[in-house]
């Protein structure tokens, strides 16, 4: 995050045109995009390991919803990450680097971030669930997230992408997983774009839930394990 910020300071200082970003707004952009990346990150390898080791059997026979348990166990970690992020924000503000956002903006940002966390959780379930068919799945995960790096805004703000790539990004889920929440908090989109953005986020979430449930249903139907 710091490297991207430092590089952008150099880029903007070199007279970069085609942008409405300033040193401060690009700093906050990468701060928020990093926060969303960190807080929504879900480890899918663990799920694959559970499948490959056979330990999943012990999990699925227990009287609770396995998906819900997986989701809930991350909450303390997410709270801790949010506190660290709040500290980073305080440091920014104490250095005189400020940005203005209202309570309603924070509320919308929180909802959008929550939807991102849920979406990435179901994506992780899908990627991890590939372990029913493949022994090593981290290649699939990296493929998915590498593609996402360019279109989610993590590498470069999506609004700076060339027109064709910008149009492509509209048909992919990545933009709504990172760029959209950041646009809300930076106040760069109007109310109609916020409404349509939330609709897109919810549609993609529904798609990811459907894929994850389908994969796990198919996977569990052919799953067997042996142990002592």
């Amino acid at each position, binding site marked *: 995050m710091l490297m991207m910020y430092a590089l952008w300071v150099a880029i903007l200082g070199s007279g*970069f045109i085609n942008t409405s970003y300033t040193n401060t707004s690009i700093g906050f952009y990468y701060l928020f995009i990093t926060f969303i990346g960190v807080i929504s990150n879900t480890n899918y390898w663990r799920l694959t390991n559970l499948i490959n080791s056979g330990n999943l059997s012990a999990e699925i026979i227990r009287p609770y919803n396995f998906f819900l348990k997986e989701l809930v166990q991350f909450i303390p970690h997410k709270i801790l990450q949010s506190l660290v992020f709040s500290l980073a924000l305080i440091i920014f503000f104490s250095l005189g680097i400020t940005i203005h956002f209202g309570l309603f903006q924070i509320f919308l940002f929180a909802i959008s971030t929550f939807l991102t966390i849920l979406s990435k959780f179901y994506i992780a379930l899908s990627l991890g669930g590939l372990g029913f068919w493949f022994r090593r799945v981290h*290649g699939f995960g990296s493929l998915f997230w*590498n593609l996402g790096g360019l279109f989610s805004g993590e590498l470069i703000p999506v609004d700076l992408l060339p027109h064709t790539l910008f149009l492509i990004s509209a048909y992919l889920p990545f933009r709504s997983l990172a760029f959209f929440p950041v646009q809300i908090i930076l106040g760069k989109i109007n109310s109609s774009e916020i409404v349509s953005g939330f609709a897109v986020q919810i549609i993609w979430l529904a798609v990811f839930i459907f894929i994850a449930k389908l994969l796990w249903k198919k996977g569990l139907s052919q799953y067997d394990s042996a142990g002592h």
Partner: protein
Amino acid sequence: MKKYFKIYIRVFKLSAMSEMINRENFWTWLIIHSMSLISMIIFFKIIYGGTSSINGWTEYQSLLVLGIGSLVTGLGSLTFFPFMYNFGRDIDEGDLDMRLIKPLDILYQSAFNFVDFEDFVVVPNSLLLIAYALWKLHPSHLLINILGFIPIFISGMIILFSLLTLIQSLAFKLIRVDSVASFYWSIVNISKYPAKAIKGIGLIGITLLIPIAVISSLPAEILFGRWDWIWITGSIISAIILFIFSRWVFMSSLRHYSSASS
């Protein structure tokens, strides 16, 4: 020395055989790394679409840094990067005992225990990018530049190895340094950006960027014919001092190790 080279060749062959069991995995990683590199090239194309240079660094000079940064990833995976993955677990589970009883250098055994072919596949891509950037830059005295590039590139790799050795030495005290891999990867990844182009972020920021600049920006500068003798001398001296120091720290930290297997 010959003995260690033979052992490395054996490790290389075993790792290659293991990787070839999952050939589809190898091709998947080739696609992943190609996409990742293309994303970075698009990033620089967009940046240089809006400005002709970043503090004197042109588009193809930056692409050269990207190529060299990617080459660092590939060659690091071929040699000592696996050191960052399982060392803490080996200490935790007492697996280091087996290594200690072998008549081989313990640091060598810990660092060169397998070859990570998944990331090695970036090497051909990065070499292609370096060749493309050099073709566009058409520097004079390319052969001399390449001869100067090799020792400076090796210095950068030694500095990276020494940093990893220092970080992993903590594992003897802290046992699990879980975030080592992600921290170290972030250092490796930011070496793909032209760190020497960054200015105006304060003394602390610039100081932190010096090792990053030495790893990839400095070798790139030499390749396109900008010989910064202060940096070159600093890089070689730092590599020697850091290597000796990190090895001393590792060996001293080893005294804190007690077997966990019994």
